[in-house]
């Protein structure tokens, strides 16, 4: 019989209850400590802890059910009184507590949390005052006591909640708390850290819905239906005053020092080394590759530089290996020529995307040979390499061993005639090349023979203990994405096996050992060493970065398929070499980006590739924005043309661009280009506090590399700004009395300062747009630095009298026709691909026919059922509201009829799209019977 397993995590208040009950009842059960984000219960989409895996295989994920279960197993039946308390705890106390803790611990509020708890606590106090027994339900401690004690424990820790004033509650709480079981469990969960211990846990929880009373008071003040969840936050007096103080801080116009190469770690600074997975050289990168590593790392690097970190961002092309040899043969060039050609292509694509590497190198350099061979010898000397013979296919006519990709034959499982040496395209199973039936050399079509060849293996099992020790430390102290942790864990769970590090190839780093002459290192051993050699090509003092774990923090960016090589294999090489190497501290892995719900495929010409993006005429910044907006964090995402147009038109044009442009235009039109005087009123203070809060969030998110979430903060700020302008109507007030004119001035000046803040926050995402805004507004260079210091400071950087430059629109609309034609162009086979497609083997034709990616004929469109998309509908609803505001504003300004007409047409189009997204038919057309 399997033993029961209880999964708990540190700093999770619910674990307090189950651990105390477990101790108290003495039930036999395995306790496993896991991370907050560990998905234990297979059917729940959000990680939920604690969880109990029962012997029968079932899972309990309700804390109270687990506690009750332990009690029942130990022989205490539940009764109606304790049931009633448990239900009250789950439905009344918990929601209030979650809210209170969030307010107190995450937002640092002082009065609101106590208010949130008022009602349930006074009920508890009354009940406890009236009771006649020592504990809630009896003279002895029961399950209800532990559950309520555990729930209230964090509230008692947090002084602001004034729990001490509730006499009966306090007496009862202390009576339960002195039980050794309770003391022990609180030590395990809180580790004596107080409420701070909860931070990590609370961060991972969804923001609780604001209390009802708050929401009402807020909506009545603004009354806009476009309110997003986040802006439901209400600012307290203290927050508003604090925001106003920050606003008035003087800024010294000190500029950030120029980057001076070589950048080297410095004592007393935060030294950050960023790598992006090295793109493989034999192909043009597609959008998925770009967002997966180089672009994500670029945003983080730009952010870090703005924050004043001493930071080095390196990357380069990975050039050795079979695939390059293959490509060279295809194109009739030497491998080196292929590398040179594609390295240049990669370089220019990344330049176009404005990826700001400190150095972009390559792996085919003498430095690579030197460092790889050094690591090899160190591993060899320390006994971490083992010899073994491997059976391989050799083509006698080509005089070489055949890598997996150079063999084709009949699949041993499904008898598909064109299976590749590593995998069958038909049944998808992995194949060992020597098992292929009727194998053929792909180059000369001769039948290869099986030969054995001697190879070297990295002894991973011998390094496993060492690796696990390091992993535990790195994962618990650094920021690792969930997928990175899970993939690594599953590798370790399956047990490590020795891995072959040599290959019978020519295009690679030569193995220096005389017994293995003529062989090269296998790419996965060699490629990550590229990070080191590329740095070495950047500076001779590369070891200051790479042999300096005490001073350097290393961030690796990659897509999830690359994780095991960075978390298991490469660290083992470095640990085994025992040379004080810098190992990864933070590992950021993305999921996959699909293309219009299918995969990017170079051979089928599906998708947008790096070199084509600029041919679309859409600016690099917009590409960056949309890719980052979509960034596959947590789950796969899909690139869609229609969505890109929508995001461009609704978020960039109507929200962000509209706000910044209006703010600048007011200064030029109403105040002759000079920023007017600000007289802060309550409304401004509230706005400053809201904006300050979003800025704080932005910094918190980006510090944790949550790039997509931070982008939302930017859009929230401009949304607040648009609303602020909308409510105050400076274009009307400017024509009014003196007081009105002063209001118009204040609104304009605050808005234009928000635009400066936005330019700072946008820099990592849209560097060109950011620069344009700063030039248009003539923003002082020192402002960026101070705004991103510490927790973030929204200061006034354009003071009264400051003269701005010429203001012009930042974004252009993406028209439907334009998008449709792009969609057609990139949807399937393309003209420039024809040549290669002629050469394509029937294998590809087969897969093409098998997948349902044929371009839909226009006539088929009305047949497709209307598919509701609530997410899109929500976004469209926001866009409709936004556009509605715009139309109203224009009408209020008495703009020209033609202008209003155009905007109204836009509004109608948006409404139509919204109806479609809601699954409604926008026009009453003759309903066709749907096909079954």
């Amino acid at each position, binding site marked *: 019989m399997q033993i029961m397993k209880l999964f708990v995590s540190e700093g999770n208040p619910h674990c307090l209850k189950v651990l105390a009950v477990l101790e108290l009842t003495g039930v036999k059960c395995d306790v496993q400590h896991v991370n907050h984000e560990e998905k234990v219960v297979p059917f729940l989409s959000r990680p939920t802890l604690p969880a109990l895996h029962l012997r029968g295989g079932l899972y309990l994920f309700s804390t109270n059910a687990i506690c009750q279960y332990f009690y029942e197993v130990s022989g205490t039946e539940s009764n109606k009184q304790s049931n009633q308390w448990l239900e009250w705890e789950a439905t009344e106390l918990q929601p209030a507590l979650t809210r209170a803790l969030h307010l107190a611990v995450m937002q640092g509020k002082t009065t609101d949390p106590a208010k949130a708890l008022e009602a349930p606590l006074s009920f508890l106090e009354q009940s406890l005052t009236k009771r006649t027994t020592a504990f809630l339900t009896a003279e002895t401690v029961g399950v209800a006591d532990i559950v309520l004690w555990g729930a209230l424990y964090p509230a008692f820790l947090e002084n602001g909640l004034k729990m001490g004033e509730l006499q009966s509650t306090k007496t009862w709480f202390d009576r339960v708390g002195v039980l050794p079981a309770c003391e022990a469990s609180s030590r395990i969960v809180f580790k004596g850290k107080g409420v701070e211990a909860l931070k990590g846990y609370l961060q991972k929880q969804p923001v609780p819905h604001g209390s009802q009373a708050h929401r009402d008071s807020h909506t009545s003040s603004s009354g806009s239906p476009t309110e997003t969840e986040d802006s439901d936050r209400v600012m307290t007096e203290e927050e508003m005053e604090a925001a106003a103080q920050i606003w008035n801080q003087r800024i010294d116009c000190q500029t950030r020092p120029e980057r001076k190469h070589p950048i080297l770690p410095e004592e007393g600074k935060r030294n950050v080394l960023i790598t992006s997975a090295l793109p493989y050289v034999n192909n043009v990168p597609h959008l998925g590759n770009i967002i997966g590593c180089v672009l994500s790392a670029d945003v983080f690097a730009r952010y870090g530089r703005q924050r004043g970190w001493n930071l080095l961002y390196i990357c380069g092309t990975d050039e050795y290996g079979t695939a390059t040899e293959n490509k060279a043969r295809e194109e009739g060039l030497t491998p080196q020529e292929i590398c040179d050609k594609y390295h240049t292509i990669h370089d220019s694509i990344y330049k176009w995307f404005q990826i700001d590497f400190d150095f972009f190198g390559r792996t085919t350099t003498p430095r690579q040979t030197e460092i790889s061979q050094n690591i090899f010898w160190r591993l060899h000397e320390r006994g971490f390499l083992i010899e073994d013979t491997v059976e391989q296919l050799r083509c006698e006519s080509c005089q070489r061993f055949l890598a997996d990709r150079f063999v084709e034959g009949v699949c041993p499982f499904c008898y598909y005639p064109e299976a590749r040496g590593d995998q069958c395209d038909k049944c998808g199973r992995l194949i060992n090349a020597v098992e292929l039936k009727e194998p053929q050399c792909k180059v000369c079509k001769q039948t290869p023979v099986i030969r054995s060849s001697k190879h070297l293996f990295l002894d991973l099992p011998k390094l496993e203990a060492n690796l696990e020790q390091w992993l535990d430390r790195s994962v618990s102290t650094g920021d690792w994405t969930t997928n990175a942790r899970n993939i690594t864990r599953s590798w370790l769970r399956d047990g490590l096996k020795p891995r072959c590090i040599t290959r019978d190839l020519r295009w690679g780093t030569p193995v220096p050992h005389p017994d293995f002459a003529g062989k090269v290192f296998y790419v996965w051993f060699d490629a990550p060493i590229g990070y080191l050699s590329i740095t070495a090509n950047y500076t001779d003092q590369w070891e200051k970065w790479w042999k300096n774990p005490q001073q350097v923090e290393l961030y690796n960016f990659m897509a999830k398929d690359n994780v095991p090589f960075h978390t298991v294999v490469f660290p083992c090489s470095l640990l085994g070499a025992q040379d004080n190497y810098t190992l990864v501290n933070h590992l950021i892995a993305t999921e996959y980006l699909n293309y219009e719900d299918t995969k990017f495929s170079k051979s089928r010409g599906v998708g947008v590739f790096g070199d084509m993006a600029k041919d679309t005429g859409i600016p690099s910044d917009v590409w960056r924005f949309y890719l980052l907006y979509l960034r596959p964090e947590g789950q796969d995402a899909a690139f869609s043309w229609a969505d890109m147009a929508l995001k461009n038109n609704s978020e960039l044009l109507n929200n962000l661009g509209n706000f910044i442009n209006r703010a600048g235009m007011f200064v030029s039109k109403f105040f002759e280009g000079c920023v007017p005087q600000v007289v802060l009123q309550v409304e401004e203070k509230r706005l400053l506090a809201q904006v300050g809060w979003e800025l704080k969030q932005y910094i918190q998110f980006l510090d944790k590399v949550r790039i997509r979430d931070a982008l939302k903060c930017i859009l929230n700020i401009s949304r607040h700004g648009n609303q602020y302008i909308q409510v105050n109507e400076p274009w009307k007030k400017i024509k009014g009395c003196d007081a009105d004119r002063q209001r118009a001035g204040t609104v304009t000046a605050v808005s234009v300062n928000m635009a400066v803040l936005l330019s700072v926050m946008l820099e990592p995402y849209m560097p060109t747009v950011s620069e344009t805004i700063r030039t248009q507004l003539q923003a002082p260079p020192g402002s960026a630095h101070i705004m991103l210091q510490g927790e973030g400071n929204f200061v006034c950087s354009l003071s009264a009298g400051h003269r701005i430059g010429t203001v012009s629109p930042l974004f252009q609309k993406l028209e439907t026709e334009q998008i449709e034609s792009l969609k057609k162009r990139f949807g399937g086979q393309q003209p420039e691909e024809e040549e290669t497609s002629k050469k394509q083997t029937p294998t590809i034709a087969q897969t093409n026919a098998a997948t349902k990616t044929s371009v839909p004929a226009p006539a088929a469109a009305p047949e497709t059922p209307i598919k*509701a998309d609530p997410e899109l509908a929500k976004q469209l609803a926001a866009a409709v509201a936004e556009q509605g505001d715009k139309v109203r504003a224009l009408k209020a300004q008495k703009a020209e009829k033609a202008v209003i007409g155009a905007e109204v047409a836009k509004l109608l189009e948006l409404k139509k799209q919204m109806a479609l997204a809601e699954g409604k038919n926008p026009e009453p057309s003759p309903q066709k019977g749907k096909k079954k």
Partner: protein
Amino acid sequence: MALRELSSLEKFLGLKKPNKYSTQGDRKVPVLQSNSGPGLVGLVTIATQLTQEAKRPDLLGKSAEERAVVQQWLEYRVARLECCVKEDIKTILKDLNTYLEDKVYLAGNHITIADPLMYYGLHPVIMDLAVMDKEKYLNVTRWFDHMQHYPGVRHHLPPVVVLRNRVYTSGHH
């Protein structure tokens, strides 16, 4: 709402004599009136009590493990389903759908009071689902349809139409 649900539950349990109920608070939490002492508060607590009075302990689970599972879903009903916002509904349906993939009833192979109570709670949600979503949450829909046809469960609620053949066969799911 909760009161009608309790009266349906009484019928399902075969209790002859109807009890007296009231509600308390903003959330209209049901209270079972009692002649001796204070009433019993809370839907789950009352439902559990009624089941015991009806001498149907099997409906609370036949083993300690099963009883825990039943309590867990009852709590889920009142704590998660009751006070959730729109976005949560999707997660709830998705999770239930995964959970019910290999189950006939919430506790496995036989009915417990978790089933009718979850059915009552989900009814308004399922009523609002589009045909396509009903197909997306196929296992929830199957279980729901089974519950509304289970003798003595539906009572106060209108039946929800569930198509037996799939319309959107080409869907991704």
